[in-house]
């Protein structure tokens, strides 16, 4: 008998608070698997965002901190500078990372800060009930773009992977998705590569992961995965944007 799939050690045996079908859960599991497989659990320090992932510290079975909204990269910087031998990562939503936390993420990248960022792009503010995010697509209806996002009023969705790739300090920047099994597997590979980048001291690494918010998109979980494929990927192309050798 071979175990094909079971709960990784890096996750506590505890129910997630996420909505049905929300891919935050998949991403949690994948991160935990990577950390297990790379033998890093005991030297990992994770930083939670404010966003639906705020309670991630209740699920991850290693040292965790909870950051003020948007400031996870600064906190991770403080930790990593004191403990350069540990593996330090942040887990951040698009409101957290691309809106309020824009300065912190750009500067962590510019400094080549040797941390890893897992960036959950679901084109919306999940936790606070569906407001517009910087990544909200043109035309997308949210509670603060009730008539659809209009570029004249609310500007254009930011592509964080592309933007951060312009910084010299960025060592590994990649965008993946978890909307089907093949892409979940690719995401796992990318996360491992990002972790490896940090372990080798190359500098800043980020995996931007396209994720769903069935609740605030007002869709079934399956329709939500379809939207990732049909609407998000065309604007947020998948792939590696920076790989420092």
């Amino acid at each position, binding site marked *: 008998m071979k175990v094909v799939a079971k709960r990784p050690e890096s996750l506590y045996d505890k129910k*997630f*608070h*996420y*909505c049905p079908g929300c891919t935050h859960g998949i991403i949690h599991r994948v991160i935990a698997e990577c950390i297990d497989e790379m033998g890093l659990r005991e030297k990992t320090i994770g930083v939670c965002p404010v966003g*639906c992932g*705020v309670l991630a510290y209740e699920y991850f079975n290693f040292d965790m901190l909870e950051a003020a909204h948007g400031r996870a990269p600064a906190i991770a910087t403080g930790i990593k500078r004191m403990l350069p031998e540990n593996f330090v990562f942040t887990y951040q939503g698009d409101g957290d990372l691309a809106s309020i936390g824009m300065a912190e993420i750009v500067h962590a990248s510019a400094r080549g800060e040797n941390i890893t960022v897992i960036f959950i792009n679901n084109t919306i503010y*999940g*936790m*606070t*009930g569906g407001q517009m995010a910087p990544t909200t697509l043109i035309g997308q209806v949210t509670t603060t773009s009730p008539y659809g996002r209009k570029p004249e009023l609310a500007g254009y969705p930011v592509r964080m992977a592309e933007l951060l790739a312009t910084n010299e300090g960025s060592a590994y920047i990649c965008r993946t998705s978890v909307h089907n099994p093949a892409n979940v597997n690719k995401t796992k590979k990318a996360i491992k590569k990002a972790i490896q980048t940090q372990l080798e001291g190359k500098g800043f690494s980020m995996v931007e992961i396209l994720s769903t918010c069935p*609740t605030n998109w007002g869709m079934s979980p399956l329709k939500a995965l379809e939207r990732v494929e049909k609407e998000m990927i065309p604007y947020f192309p998948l792939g590696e944007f920076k790989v420092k050798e």
Partner: protein
Amino acid sequence: MEEKQVLFAGFGGQGVLSMGQFLTHAALSAGKHVSWVPSYGAEMRGGTANCLVTISDEEISSPITENPLMAVILNRPSLDKFENKIKPNGTLVINSSLVDREPRRDDLDVLKLPVNELADRLGNPRGANMILLGAYLEKTKVVEVEKALEYFDVIFKGKSEEVIRKNKEAFLAGVEYARQHW
């Protein structure tokens, strides 16, 4: 009628808040003083939700209480949390589909109905809350069922006819259940 406070409690997705809002609207339409106070938890996914409706003939001084006269309980955690807070000799309405234990207090007027089953049977799983509300109003007369029905269109203003129809159907199924079982 003196001041009455009703608590609605259940999971986030079960429509407890709109149940309370419906009652509030209905009572306002019927000429009462009202207030609706939700516990809010948008920042906490997958949690429990509840709201407190106060209905009175006079101005409402405090819209807050921890000891409501009545409670409409949609799931087990809510029963555990609120059972002891209901006023002595108050009313407790329970969704027996999701509450797998008996109430412990014996001074309460306990009314049970298997809401999820009823809703499944109606082919309208989202109608559970309206079933409960129909039954509750039929039994307690906090607002007359007829009055509530009159104001249905006003309260659901902006919703599609289909939605209104389905909600009314569920509401009436609840009324029917109360007539037959309570």
